[in-house]
């Protein structure tokens, strides 16, 4: 390292660390998505259809989340119902 680099490195951390951080987040997200079972979109669609038979909910009212760790799989369903005024 040169003498001037001492000052330089304080001034500017470099863009590589930003790239690495962004990639780590992105790749983790991509991988989580890749490992999801292929039936999830259809499951979400059908649950939504059933709920809409009874309650007027938005198309994005149902979210399906899938998570996996070493020995467990989680399937999380989240349904947002409209406030009382919207119910029929």
């Amino acid at each position, binding site marked *: 390292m*040169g003498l001037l680099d001492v000052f330089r490195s304080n001034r*500017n951390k*470099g863009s*590589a660390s930003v*790239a*690495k951080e962004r990639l*780590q987040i992105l*790749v983790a997200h*991509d*991988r989580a998505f890749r490992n999801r079972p292929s039936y999830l979109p259809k499951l979400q669609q059908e649950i939504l259809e059933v709920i809409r038979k009874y309650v007027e909910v938005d198309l994005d009212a149902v979210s399906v989340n899938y998570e996996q760790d070493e020995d467990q799989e989680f399937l999380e369903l989240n349904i947002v119902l409209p406030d009382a005024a919207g119910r029929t």
Partner: protein
Amino acid sequence: MARIIVITSGKGGVGKTTTAAAMAMGLAQRGHRTVVIDFDVGLRNLDLIMGCERRVVYDFVNVINGEANLNQALIRDKRCDSLYVLPASQTRDKEALTQEGVGKVLEDLGKGYDYIVCDSPAGIEHGATMAMYFADDAVVVTNPEVSSVRDSDRMLGILASKSRRAEQNDEPIKEHLLLTRYSPERVERGEMLSVNDVQEILSLNLLGVIPESQAVLNASNAGIPVVLDNESNAGMAYNDMVSRYLGEDLPMRFLDAERKGIFSRIFGG
């Protein structure tokens, strides 16, 4: 049976064809009977990098369609007796590569060769999936740059799910990482992802690091695989890659910036 190696990346322009040519030539130079196949139907370039573009008569698609036999289509390399090139066709549509047809050609080649190197086109479409479907090994060529690393990771997902080995529940394809266009100076200045950064993200077996080098362009200008240029850093790094693939344990070279004179050391280069 021959071992089938696919050279893949997802992203274009990262050095797949250069790597395929280097891998094939390197294996052949070490005495292994090797054939390198261009899967980039419509945009063939391997013949140009190998310097045999004027000797192409029949191509991969001709063989699949039964318009020529393998011996008519294979081009023997003039520099190395045990190396053959199977060029891609220039004009036909990409769907010409049927899974059945490709499988048959690979099976026939497998009887006479030790290694089959498949140069995949960019992308994740038909040609690329055909190139990787039958593979035993995959070399994922990656530049130390965000979009290339991301695409490589996507490729890994496809390798793990859409290959013959995956479908038949065999041992998965062996995946290797090759980092190309590496600039130690820029890494030292914090402007480029380092080998360790990329390794941390992709966690693959590192087969080699090829430094950014003028020699690569010179070699493709002349139609001589850069692995034959043993004067250049890139040529030496590619030779190390081939040796490592064959099981030699070699340290990575050219990872540090070249040291400069006292003047530029003091004032920074």
